[in-house]
């Protein structure tokens, strides 16, 4: 039980990543696949945050001069996540615009039916 408690963020993060990957692997509706990618992104962001977490830590902001620096969480993963989120959004937007076009061309979003390019 303590394992679960100690690592709950990791478990959650990788749970999300696995769910995302599984969605990409087994679902054949493009929108669901894109959702899967998005879930995976979320999981990765959570993982990055979890890496930088310090137990009972506070945000790394010196909002007043008397704030102590001892228990501040690592700011680097937070900065990375900021970037990763934006990248995720960018990819998501592009994917959705492609999905719109794809639907116009094929009249379906079923990836099993979109197999004109193969071999």
């Amino acid at each position: 039980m303590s394992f679960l408690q100690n690592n709950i963020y990791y478990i959650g993060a990788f749970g999300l990543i696995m769910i995302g990957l599984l969605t990409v692997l087994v679902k054949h509706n493009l929108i669901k696949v894109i959702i899967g990618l998005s879930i995976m992104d979320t999981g990765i962001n959570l993982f990055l945050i979890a890496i930088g977490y310090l137990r009972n830590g506070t945000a790394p902001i010196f909002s007043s001069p008397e704030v102590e620096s001892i228990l501040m969480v690592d700011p680097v993963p937070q900065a990375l996540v900021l970037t990763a989120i934006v990248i995720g959004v960018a990819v998501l937007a592009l994917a959705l615009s492609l999905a719109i076009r794809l639907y116009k061309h094929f009249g379906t979003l079923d990836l099993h039916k979109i197999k004109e390019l193969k071999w």
Partner: protein
Amino acid sequence: MTGMEILLLVAFGGVMLTYILGRISSSLRNTFAVVLSLVLVVIIALMYDKTGETIFYRGFFGIPMVLRINSLSWIFAMTISFIGCLSVIFSLDYMKVKERTSFFYAMLLLVNSSMMGIVLAGDLLTLFIFWEIMSWSTFLLISYNGGPAIAAGMKYIVMSFAGSMAMLAGIISIFTAFGTLQISEIAAGMSSASSGFKIFIVIVFGIAFGVKNAIWPFHAWLPQAHAEAPSPFSAVLSGVLIKMGVFGFILTMYVVVGLGTYMSLGGAIFSVRSILLVMGAITILVPTFVALLQDDAKKLLAWSTIAQAGYIMLGIAYGTSLSMAGGVLHFLSHVVFKSLLFMTVGAVEFRTGGIRDLNSLGGLIKKMPFAFTGTLIGVCGLIGVPLTNGFVSKWLIYKSLIFGSPLLTFVALFGTWGTVLYSYKLIHNIFLGQLPEKLKDVENTPLSMKLPMIILSFTVLLFGILPGLPLRVINKIVVSLGFDSLNISLWGIVSESGMLNMINLFAAILAGLIAVWLFLRIGARTIPVKQDDNYAAGAAVPRDRYNYTVKFYDPLLRMISPYLRDIFDTFYMKIADLTGYLSNGIRKIYTGYVGNYVMYIVLFISLMIFVQMKWSPW
């Protein structure tokens, strides 16, 4: 700047200039091409009896690239430039009716230039570079005619490229083993190498040169390629290009590996030498009879080329000074008479509008007397009739083999019988017999085609009567390769197994001929009988049926043809099919469904992790 550098500069610069001039005016280009090839002949002739090495380029990663000239390179270079020049002259009329002639001339000259590069190469890297240039330019020329030539070109380039890759492996192994590619330095290193390494070198080079030289079982590309190439190029192809393989063999066996090592390389029974001899013998035996089966004049000559390559191989692989001289001389003879034959057949093809089928030709002797004479002399050389060069070279080969290996001698002789048969088929079906109706308006050979034929016919006879001329140079080669010197006079040769003196033969034959001529002259008068009197027992037969040369040697062929299936050709085609089939199977992994693709990614990672966790190899 030495003569060799100038030579190559002129040759390769001329190629480009020819193409550029072709853009301006075709007659200017033709003149330039002829002049260029004549200049090359002159430059090489001036280099007679010179030896020397010169580093001409260090730009390739600092590996010194060397040109060298000695008697071996000289004789090959001379032959190349000579035949190249004649084929350019021959092309003048032949190519008039075709399109993209500038491309043709430029490529023809490029092939010649790259072959000169090969024979003048003093290191293996230079050799390989020119070798590859020769391979791809030849490919472009073979495919030139389109249609069936496409398949022929493809077969040629694939086999040749496979050979080149084998050669590259060999060259680079040598480079990594000895740190040098200069032929003169390799020889020193080779003597201390392990015999396994030597055998490896012999095998990879053997494949490369064997493919080019069309030694059985690497001959599969040759018949189609020779048949489908434009005739002036067929002459070059059959005459000199495949002889680059001979050059390579001599270089590998006697210069790189060394004479002493070569003779003892391998086990007692399966020594490298005996294997090469057997390959040579098979190369004589089978293609000779396959040639009999051919109805296409150029294909017949192509198979004959393979068979003759077998003789050269026998001579070279046998490894005595006499056989070596025979091999090299036969190379020279073959160049001359085979180019001559391809040119005469090309002239016929040119005048009859592309007919090469022996069954639909005939009776052209009156229409094209020059071509007939050329063919006659060429065929005599091919068979080895005395007073032709073929006689001398075959005599040397037989002489050297007859005591050491009677079986091989028998095979060689047997091959000659076959040669007689197909030679007769060739000359008869084209020039003798009945003239088909549709060939009534065939004109005589044009001048630009006559000229090379005259020169080549003259050479056939010259070397036949005065074999000492080429043999003097050949003797130098033989000595430089480490053999004993031969005793040579202008008229012939004296060896321990017999002597040859062409002046006696010449006198005897001349006397005989004069006697016959006198006898005929004094004796009978011939009465011309019309053939159609007795042809079909008086029955009315349409005139174009009169040609009785269809199905030559039919009973014989029916007897032997089941044994002459080209298993290696089939084998190569099977490999090609298999590759295609396999490729088609493999590309099915790209199924088009993106879920699978992601699966591959995850599979890759999971597999790695699984292996790592299970066995921890890392």
